[in-house]
């Protein structure tokens, strides 16, 4: 018992090596990451099927499609990886993110229901449906976790994926009944191909969420230590969980209504960051946001150039890359034991 305690303490020390330098955000590696993301952003601005230098209306097109696309990449990249981080904290599980807890499937069901109820629904309606359903879905997942008290890290995402599978089976049934499977399929493949001026602005909501999470970061970190410790430290556990879930569903709803399904981003980015830096949410947040932006922008650039002048959906690239990292993470976790 004593030995165990000791190793644990040492382990904790190792996983938080930068704690003392917390105030120092602008380290060499962070600046390097910033530069990388800026370069990726510039490449993204100058990648595309339209010849913006040669054509007369090139500059116009630049602002109609390139700037919105790059901005929406940055916003969704930051948002999806951040929701992953928040979710991992409040479930105290590293392998959790919206795609492995059924949240995305619930959002899809919400969209489908909106399509069933309203003919040709507006973006606001679609978003509303997706947000509402992902909130309900994530709450159900949480209630389930609380009841069952499964603490094995692998069981939690498995339960989430099972719930997600049930929901997506239900969606398929609804889709079949109302003859909408193919529209929904097309929608579910996340792609930035149609992002242009006037079609992406809703994503700015994400910025508010980022700020909120940053302000709320310390409380979320405490919740990440478990209900007992958090309550002892004067945090209202349930309120914070509720707010966390609301944040997650807001982001997932907005992103899935505007872009579609972006798998694995929320899983891999926070894990890579916390492997390198430990688990302090506040100082990790800028890292998570930046890395998320960088990865999704890189994936989108690949998706745009692979079969020029057509595109592969970015979710395909992201899924391939993400599942690879996911497997590496699982294997690494096993080796540590």
């Amino acid at each position, binding site marked *: 018992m004593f030995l165990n305690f000791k190793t644990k303490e040492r382990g904790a020390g190792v996983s938080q090596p930068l704690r003392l330098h917390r105030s120092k955000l602008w380290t060499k590696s962070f600046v390097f990451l910033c530069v990388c993301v800026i370069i990726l952003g510039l490449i993204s601005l100058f990648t595309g*099927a339209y010849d913006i230098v040669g054509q007369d209306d090139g500059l116009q097109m630049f602002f109609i499609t390139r700037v919105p696309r790059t901005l929406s990449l940055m916003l969704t990249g930051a948002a999806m990886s951040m929701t992953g981080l928040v979710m991992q904290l409040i479930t105290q599980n590293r392998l959790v993110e919206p795609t492995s807890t059924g949240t995305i499937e619930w959002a899809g069901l919400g969209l489908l229901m909106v399509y069933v109820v309203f*003919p040709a629904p507006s973006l606001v309606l679609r978003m509303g449906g997706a947000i509402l359903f992902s909130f309900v879905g994530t709450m159900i997942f949480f209630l389930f976790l609380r009841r069952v008290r499964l603490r094995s890290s692998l069981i939690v995402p498995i339960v989430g994926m099972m719930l997600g599978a049930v929901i997506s089976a239900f969606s398929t049934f609804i889709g079949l009944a109302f*003859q909408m499977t*193919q529209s*929904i399929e*097309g929608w579910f493949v996340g*792609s930035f*191909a*149609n992002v242009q001026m006037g079609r992406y602005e809703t994503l700015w909501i994400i910025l508010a969420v980022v700020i909120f999470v940053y302000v709320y970061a310390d409380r979320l970190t405490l919740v990440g230590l478990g209900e007992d410790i958090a309550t002892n430290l004067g945090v209202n556990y349930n309120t914070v969980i509720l707010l966390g879930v609301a944040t997650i569903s807001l982001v997932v709803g907005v992103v899935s209504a505007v872009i579609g399904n972006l798998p694995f981003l929320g899983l891999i980015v926070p894990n890579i960051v916390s492997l390198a830096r430990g688990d302090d949410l506040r100082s990790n947040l800028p890292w998570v946001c930046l890395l998320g932006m960088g990865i999704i922008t890189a994936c989108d650039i690949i998706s*745009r150039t692979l079969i020029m002048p057509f595109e592969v959906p970015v979710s395909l690239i992201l899924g391939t890359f993400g599942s690879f990292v996911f497997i590496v993470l699982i294997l690494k976790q096993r080796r540590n034991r």
Partner: protein
Amino acid sequence: MKKFKLSKLVLIALSLMMMLTACGNQNDANNSNGGQGSTVDITDVHGVVSVPINPKRVVALDNRTFETLSDWKIELKAAPKDVMPSDSTYVLDESVQNIGNHREPNLEIIAAVNPDLVIVGQRFASYYDQIKELVPNAAVVDFSFDVSKDAATPGKNLVNGLKDSTIALGKIFSKELEANKLVSDFDDAIESVNKAYNGTDTVMGVIVSGGNIGYAAPGSGRVWGPMFEIFNWKPALDVDNSTSDHQGDDISVEAIAQSNPQWVFVLDRDAATSDASQAVPAQDVINNAPALQNIDAIKANHVVYAPKDTYTNESIQTYLELFNNLAKALAE
């Protein structure tokens, strides 16, 4: 709501009457069939099939035949209602049993209605052998034709496929005059599109679904592809190895703008499956896209939408309407 109920009642009454008359007719048919061998030889993709003339118990699975059959007031015993236009008389008729969609069809219904004739084609082509096994006593004709990338002449296949199946249906249901009229109208429509197209304008076919724009490869695939061959259209963008499935490649608005087509032809896939009274989402996706405002097709209002139910109908009548629309637009 009340109105709806009333119409439903009328429908049920109608279908009941139809069922009664159907029973009566069947007896007659059995009697007359005993006397002479009234069959006709139909050539389909698998060879020659001997089909009874004016069969009473018909199951149709080929979307390209439904409109012709309903125009001729042919009674069906079963049909895949899930992949049919929602305003089809067969979908509304409750005496027609629903086989479901082509992904998870309830093929047992086909056996249960004990058909004289099963018309297979297009979406259900892959079930041909299974259906033959299920109904060994029925005539099974397969009106599929190849418009895929493997086909050498997808355009010719489409035209001949539609014409041949119409003529064959005319022979089976003793509607040869009507069938010949349809085919000659169809030929006229093709001719008028050919005349109206100036031979130099560049054309792009797109398939819009769920707010995404898919690029229809010139040459093969659903609806637009084969037409490049039929009418000798000049593609605005021709790329090797583009997929030619029913969805098309994911194409960005930028790529469309860059290729600057003089004509954009749009198939709205969702319009076919949603209520016809709804707004057309594809119109918003194409006509109102900020990035497409400067292309020639939008500036000259050279955007033609396929009839709303094209995706689930695709009958010779649909193509007739589409070709006439195209001819009118191209002539302007």
